[in-house]
C-alpha cells in the first residue's frame, strides 16, 4: 500500500476537526433543549403533586380532613387539629386588626396623613433652595478643600512658600468672583460663613424631614398591617386548605416511593394520582440520566479528541514534516470519521427522549411489580444499564423481560401501549 503524504494527513485531520466541531454544536443544542424540557417536566411534576394533594384533601370538610389523616397516618391534618390552628390564626389576625383600629394614629390617619404631607411640603420648600445652594458651592473646584483647610480664617496654617497656598488663593478668588455677590458677600471669609450657616441649617432641616418621613412611613405601615390582616381573614379558608395540603405533600415527599404506594394503593383515585407523581418524577430523573450519558459525557469526550487532533495537526504542520510520508493504516485509523457513531448515539438519545416524554400511562406501573418506570417508558427496547438503579434491578430480576412481554400483551389487548405515539424508530 502506498504511503500517505503529509499534506493528505493534514487534510484528514482538518476534516476530523470539522466533524468534531459540528458534533460539539449538536451536543450544545441538545444541552439547551434539555434545560427547557426539564423546566417543562418540573411544571408537570408540580401539577401532579397538586392533583394528588387535591384528591387527598379535597376540602376543609371534617370528613375530608379526617379521611386524609387516617389514610396517611398524619394526625396533623385531622379536622380537630386544622380547625384549632385556623381558630388561633383567626384570633391572631382579629387581634391585629383590633390593635391597629385602637391606635389613635389609625383613627386620625387621614388628618394625620394630610398634616404630615403638608409639613413635608413646607419644609421641602425651605430645604430645596438651601440644598441647591450648598451643592452648588461644593461643586466648585477646590471649595471643600478651602473650607476644610480654614482658608480665609485666622486658623489657616498653609505657609506662603507652599504651592497649595497659591492654589487656595487662586481658587478662593475664583469662587468669590462667581458666588459671593449672589449671596450678598464680598470676600471668602464671608462666603465661607454663609456656606457653613446654610449647611448647618440644611442639616437640621434634613433631620426634621427624616423624622417626618419616618412618621409618615410608620402611619402607612400601620394601615398596611390592618389591610394585610383583613386580607388574611378574607382568604383564610383557602390558606388553611393550602397549608393542610402542604403538610400532606411534605409528609408524602419524605417517604420512599414504595411506602407512598403502600399508603395509597387501596383507593383507585389516590393510586392513580400518586403513580402520576412518581412517574413524572421518574421521567425527570431518566431524562437527566440519558442526558448525562448521551450528551454530557460525549461532550467531554469530543473535547478531548479535539484537543488531541489539534496537537497532532500542529505537529503535522511543522516544516520538518512537510515532505514526510505516513503509514496509511495508522493515518486512517487516527483520523477516521466518527460521524456514524455520533449519528447513532444522537438517534438513540433523541428516540429515547421522545419515548420518555411521550409516555403518559402512569397507571400501568405496578409499585411492587417487576418492571421499572424505565422499562415502561422505553418499552423495554433501550438498554438502561448505564443507570445504576436499572442495572441493579435487571441483575436481580432476570425474568423481567417475560414480565415485560406479559405487560405489553395486556396493554395491547387493552389497546394501549402506554405512549401517545410510536416514536421509537431504532433504539437497538
Amino acid at each position, binding site marked *: 500500500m502506498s504511503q500517505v503524504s503529509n499534506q493528505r494527513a493534514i487534510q484528514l485531520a482538518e476534516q476530523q476537526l470539522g466533524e468534531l466541531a459540528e458534533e460539539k454544536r449538536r451536543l450544545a443544542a441538545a444541552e439547551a433543549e434539555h434545560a427547557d424540557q426539564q423546566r417543562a417536566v418540573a411544571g408537570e411534576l408540580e401539577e401532579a403533586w397538586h392533583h394528588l394533594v387535591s384528591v387527598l384533601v379535597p376540602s376543609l370538610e371534617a370528613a375530608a380532613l379526617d379521611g386524609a389523616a387516617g389514610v396517611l397516618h398524619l394526625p396533623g391534618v385531622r379536622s380537630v387539629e386544622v380547625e384549632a390552628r385556623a381558630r388561633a390564626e383567626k384570633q391572631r389576625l382579629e387581634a391585629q386588626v383590633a390593635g391597629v383600629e385602637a391606635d389613635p394614629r389609625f383613627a386620625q390617619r387621614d388628618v394625620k396623613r394630610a398634616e404630615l404631607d403638608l409639613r413635608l411640603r413646607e419644609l421641602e420648600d425651605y430645604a430645596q433652595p438651601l440644598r441647591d445652594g450648598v451643592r452648588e458651592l461644593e461643586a466648585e473646584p477646590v471649595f471643600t478643600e478651602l473650607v476644610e483647610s480654614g482658608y480665609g480664617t485666622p486658623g489657616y496654617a498653609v*505657609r506662603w*512658600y*507652599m*504651592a*497649595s497656598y*497659591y492654589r487656595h488663593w487662586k481658587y478662593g478668588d475664583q469662587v468669590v468672583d462667581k458666588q459671593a455677590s449672589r449671596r450678598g458677600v464680598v470676600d471668602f471669609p464671608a462666603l465661607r460663613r454663609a456656606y457653613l450657616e446654610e449647611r448647618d441649617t440644611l442639616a437640621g432641616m434634613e433631620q426634621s424631614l427624616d423624622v417626618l418621613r419616618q412618621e409618615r412611613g410608620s402611619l402607612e405601615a400601620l394601615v398596611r398591617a390592618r389591610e394585610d390582616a383583613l386580607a388574611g381573614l378574607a382568604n383564610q379558608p383557602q390558606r388553611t386548605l393550602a397549608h393542610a395540603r402542604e403538610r400532606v405533600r411534605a409528609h408524602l415527599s419524605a417517604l420512599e416511593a414504595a411506602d407512598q404506594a403502600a399508603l395509597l394503593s387501596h383507593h383507585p383515585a389516590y393510586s392513580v394520582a400518586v403513580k402520576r407523581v412518581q412517574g413524572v418524577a421518574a421521567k425527570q430523573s431518566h431524562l437527566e440520566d440519558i442526558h448525562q450519558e448521551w450528551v454530557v459525557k460525549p461532550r467531554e469526550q469530543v473535547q478531548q479528541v479535539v484537543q488531541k487532533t489539534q496537537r497532532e495537526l500542529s505537529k503535522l504542520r511543522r516544516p520538518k514534516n512537510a515532505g514526510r510520508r505516513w503509514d496509511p493504516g495508522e493515518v486512517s485509523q487516527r483520523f477516521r470519521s466518527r460521524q456514524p457513531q455520533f449519528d447513532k448515539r444522537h438517534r438513540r438519545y433523541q428516540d429515547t427522549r421522545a419515548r420518555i416524554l411521550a409516555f403518559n400511562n402512569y397507571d400501568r406501573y405496578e409499585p411492587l411489580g417487576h418492571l421499572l418506570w424505565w422499562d415502561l417508558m422505553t418499552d423495554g427496547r433501550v438498554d438502561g444499564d448505564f443507570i445504576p438503579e436499572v442495572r441493579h434491578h435487571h441483575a436481580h430480576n432476570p425474568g423481567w423481560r417475560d414480565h415485560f412481554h406479559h405487560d405489553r400483551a395486556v396493554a395491547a389487548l387493552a389497546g394501549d401501549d402506554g405512549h401517545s405515539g410510536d416514536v421509537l424508530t431504532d433504539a437497538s
Partner: protein
Amino acid sequence: MLTESQGCQVLQRVFAERGYHVQADVPFREGGVSFDADGWDPVARVGFEYLTSEAGDREDLDAAEMAELDARMGRGELFFFIMDGGLVSTAEDLAWAAHHFLDEVARRRGAP
C-alpha cells in the same frame, strides 16, 4: 495632574524667565537640612523642591528639616518653593503660583 518631571520643567522655565540660574538635582546640605533639591540657584539662594511620592522625596524632608527651612526663609536667608505634590493640575496653575511665589521673594528681599 502634572507629573513631577512636567512640574519641574514648568518651574525651570518660570525661574529662568525671572532671571534665576537654577541647576537641577543639586545636593543641598546646610545645617540640619540635607536633601537633593529639584532646582537651586546657589548664588540667589532660591530654589524649588517637588514633594511627590513619585521620586520618593517625601522622606527627604522630614518635619524637623521643614521647620528649619521655614525658620531660615522667615529670616530671608534662602527661599524654596515647595510643591506639596499632587495638588497642581495644570502647567498654567503651576506657573501662576511660581510667579506669585517669586514676587513674594522679591518683596521680602526689599525689591522696589
